[in-house]
């Protein structure tokens, strides 16, 4: 029996937590899917760090403009009311705390809110950081989207990150295939279980203490 959320369901669950009128930056992968699940009656405005506020969905072949890309170098469109700007203005929006929510994938996320999502620390790899370190420091709320464990079953929610950090104490909430989990001053705290998933299963697959939801016994 299949339990937990699939990629689309995780993305849809994230979208539920984003307030109407939010300015949102979506990372590559599952985060991108969030844009497909905007709850009825809400509007989000998407920022892409290469200089566009009001990013729209991928273009049709006829609409495609080679000079209109997102930060993942994919072709996108611009919504009515969009604005173009240069990189210093774009990262002023990020660093200056003007964006409300950033949804990011990760390698590891720790009980203290640390995130490691840019490097596995392998010495022969070409390091690449992009805008990740700016985003995690600047955006008001950092939501992390991830499979609960690696393909080999290792926990991605850990006591302390072992991979090189992207940012320290910046993550507020984690959305996995199994659960929604808050980062609190006391560490990981369950918010919600995916359908068919038990607290004990999530607890077992989490590499740090997981507290039950607030108010439960």
């Amino acid at each position, binding site marked *: 029996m299949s339990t937990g959320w699939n990629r689309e369901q995780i993305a849809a669950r994230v979208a539920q937590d984003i307030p109407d009128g939010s300015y949102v930056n979506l990372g590559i992968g599952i985060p991108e899917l969030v844009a497909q699940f905007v709850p009825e009656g809400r509007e989000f405005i998407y920022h892409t760090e290469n200089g566009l506020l009001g990013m729209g969905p991928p273009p049709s072949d006829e609409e495609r403009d080679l000079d209109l890309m997102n930060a993942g170098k994919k072709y996108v469109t*611009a919504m009515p*009311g969009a604005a173009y*700007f240069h990189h210093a203005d774009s990262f002023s929006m990020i660093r200056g705390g003007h964006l409300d929510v950033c949804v990011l994938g990760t390698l590891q996320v720790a009980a203290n809110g640390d995130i490691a999502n840019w490097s596995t620390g392998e010495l022969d790899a070409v390091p690449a950081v992009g805008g990740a370190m700016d985003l995690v420091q600047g955006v008001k709320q950092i939501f992390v989207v991830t499979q609960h464990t690696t393909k080999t079953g290792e926990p991605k929610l850990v006591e302390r990150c072992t991979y090189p950090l992207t940012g320290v104490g910046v993550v507020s909430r984690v959305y996995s295939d199994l659960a929604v989990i808050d980062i609190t001053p006391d560490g990981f705290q369950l918010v919600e279980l995916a359908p068919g998933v038990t607290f004990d299963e999530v607890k077992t697959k989490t590499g740090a203490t997981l507290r039950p939801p607030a108010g439960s016994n």
Partner: protein
Amino acid sequence: MINKVCPTVAQAVADIPDGATVMVGGFGASGSPIELLHALIDQGAKNLTVINNNTGNGEVGLAALIANGQVSKMICSFPRSSQSRVFPKFYKEGKIALDLVPQGTLAERIRAAGAGMPAFYTPTTVGTVLAEGKEQREFEGRTYVLERWLKADYALIKCETADPLGNLTYNKTARNFSPLMCMAATTTIVQTRRLVERGEINPEHVVTPGIFVDRVVEVSEPVHEDILIAEGRRYP
């Protein structure tokens, strides 16, 4: 649908509390949001710290706000001009404080606040009395002064065109400090000469993206400080 439009200038400024720090766009008369300033006079908030390049002219707009006893401190680069009478009087009577900041440093401190950078080094003021008491440091053989960001609770801004998302364009040199102040204030309130539909402003021509704007109110025939002064007007 996001809609930042506010029906009246009175409502737009209603929540500005006593003691707030308020940035006011404009350079001399050009770009001064006179209607928002007059609404703030009607509203009556006191003990304000105001950030503007100047201190207003005649007895309208910013000068009238000062004359009404609502401003306890001005942060500006050039507090006197031929038409500036209220501030010099209040200053000499000890009724208002002044923090004098060179114009380029003022602009950059405001931008730094909007861009999330708490401090930067600039060559401006090195060797002058305005650098006294400030940290100085050498880079590549030249001395620079450390300057801090400058934030505000509110910004009062005048623009030419705005849409309901808060995207703005300005008219000529009325642009001046306004795009920077929009970035640096917690709440940015804009009066626009023309309110247009979403999508009417070419995305390439937006000067202030809507993310920096909180409230937009249409003032389609704004008064101009120079005209009011020529007519001998005062407010209220």
